């Protein structure tokens, strides 16, 4: 069963993927947040595994990662929390994180445990295609996990096609060359998304980085299959007194 594939077969427009850092704001919030996101109409959940040195992320996500680590979040702890996830969560869930923590856990054990709890795919932004093809891709495939590569406006057509070919589930289109949580110029993004669309890639495209509200979410829908929100949601959670309510307000604000 490939939940991400099924999702895009049912719905190929305005797919909303929301990221949050596991263990933030509190260690035991993981399932509360996943349920709240699902209830409010989020199509796909991207669960961040906190890392001390998250290079691709901006200050908001790094700060949430530090809090999560101080709260005691580890990959082992996260898999314990996710053990019965599939009793309540029907939407696809992907894990996002950095290679060093996965290597220490053991790459194959990580894939096996992720698959066991019902994780659908992985995003490891610092695992380059060369290493993926040489070593890791076969392990990911063995455990029936999808693997999502990122492309940016700087990525050449040849390389976009290669990364699309190596990806399954969806392709993550970084809206501009930047870390997460920065404001973008949306005219440039439209031209870039049009270009990606013209390649007629095998994977659906979700746009991430700089998507923070209804306006920015709507602005990228014409030439993509949906978008990913991360930093803005984390920002909302960081000042929240009631994370269920905050999640409802935030997601409704984006969708309606």
């Amino acid at each position, binding site marked *: 069963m490939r939940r991400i594939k099924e999702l895009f077969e049912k719905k190929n427009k305005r797919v909303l993927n929301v990221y949050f850092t596991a263990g933030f704001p509190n260690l035991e919030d993981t399932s509360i947040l996943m349920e709240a996101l699902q209830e409010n109409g989020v199509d796909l959940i991207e669960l961040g595994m906190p*890392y*001390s*040195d998250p*290079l*691709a992320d*901006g*200050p908001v996500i*790094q*700060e949430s990662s*530090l809090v999560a*680590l101080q709260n005691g979040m*580890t*990959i*082992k702890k996260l898999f314990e929390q996710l053990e019965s996830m599939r009793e309540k969560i029907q939407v696809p869930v992907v894990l996002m994180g*950095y*290679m*060093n*923590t*996965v*290597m*220490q*856990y053991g790459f194959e054990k990580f894939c096996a445990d992720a698959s066991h709890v019902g994780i659908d795919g992985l995003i490891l*932004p*610092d*695992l*380059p295609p*060369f*290493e993926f093809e040489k070593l890791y891709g076969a392990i990911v495939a063995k455990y029936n996990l999808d693997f999502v*590569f*990122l*492309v*940016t406006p*700087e*990525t050449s057509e040849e*390389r976009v096609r290669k*990364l699309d070919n190596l990806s399954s589930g969806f392709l993550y289109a*970084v809206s501009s*060359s*930047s*870390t997460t949580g*920065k404001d973008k110029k949306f005219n440039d993004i439209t031209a870039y998304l049009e270009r990606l669309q013209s390649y007629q890639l095998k994977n659906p495209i979700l746009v991430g980085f700089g998507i923070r509200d209804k306006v920015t979410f709507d602005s990228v829908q014409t030439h993509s299959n949906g978008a990913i929100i991360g930093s803005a949601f984390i920002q909302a959670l960081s000042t929240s007194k009631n994370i269920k309510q905050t999640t409802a307000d935030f997601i409704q604000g984006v969708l309606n």
Partner: protein
Amino acid sequence: MVKLFSKPDEQGYFGDFGGAYIPEMLHQNVEELRSQYLSIYHDPVFQQEYLYLLKDYVGRPTPLFLAERLSERFKSTIYLKREDLCHTGAHKINNTIGQIILAERLGKKRIIAETGAGQHGVATATVCALKGLECIVYMGEKDIVRQAPNVARMKMLGATVIPATSGSKTLKDATNEAIRDWINHPHDTHYIIGSVVGPHPYPDMVARFQSIISQETRSQLKEKTGSELPTRVIACVGGGSNAAGAFYHFLDEPTVEIIAVEAAGHGVNSGMSAATTQLGVPGILHGSKSIVMQTEDGQVVEPHSISAGLDYPGIGPMHANLYTTGRARFMSATDEQAMEWAFEISRLEGIIPALETAHAFAVLEELDLSINDTSVICLSGRGDKDLATYMTAMENQ
């Protein structure tokens, strides 16, 4: 056949270590560099300018000095490679000279760098002033307080110093911030990494720019001793740039013993140490696979050393390979030993070394030096920047 230790393969691997573990947002920048650095490096016009600036601006070749009183003490022959006499006071400028010419060739207008103690920041600010390029240096908020004179030097040279306020607010975080800046500036910016760390091609490129140290050492030894090859070469290692340069042209000479000295801090097993090979395991830090000090869960830990230049939780992939293959012998020196040897060398030879460099001397007592041996120690930097620490030590004596 002699195994080549100095050069990586096509993908930037030294044995099991190296590569380029970078997010796609950095691909364009790193690929531009990777595809061009060797052809630029080998271009005679590039070499001509590089060697000219090393000679007339940096003051190379640096002397290979016979340390007579130190030699007498150990009943052996010990030479000091005087990198402390380079312009700006350390070997760091060998690399920044090379990279600034490279950046010009690539048409870059904006230079970024990370710095810990400030030596690499000063060396970068210096070459940016020389070339009239904009310079932004990321420095941990804590280091800015600890290294005020170097912050002032950078500012006087026209650089902008931006505090890294994330994480532990030291070198590791300054490096993260510099990498993020590079991600956000994919066209006009060159990142001058200060050590043999980072994604391929940095470890190889920085090692090549520092290899001038061992290239000169060979010809100076030949002149002084009749042989190009010493018994051993000793250098301190944090990320490992002075060591890479001091070892480079000796690595494929099986008779030359290679000794790398890490910072043990309060002691290797004290929990306050920066002896990466002793405390780390294979991992990924700042874009390359190497040996990394980290928790069981793969979170990078904050090391400790009295010298900011060795206070780094990783080590260049070339050194990780020298360690695991046994080509180099890795030793360590504590804060206390380094401090003791800083005073020892000051009073034996009239040279005040940087605290980093002092670590390299501290292992002499543990080595079995014979009367027929020739040892070369890379005196990587001068101690001016550490005067405040030395003054405190004198007050407490």
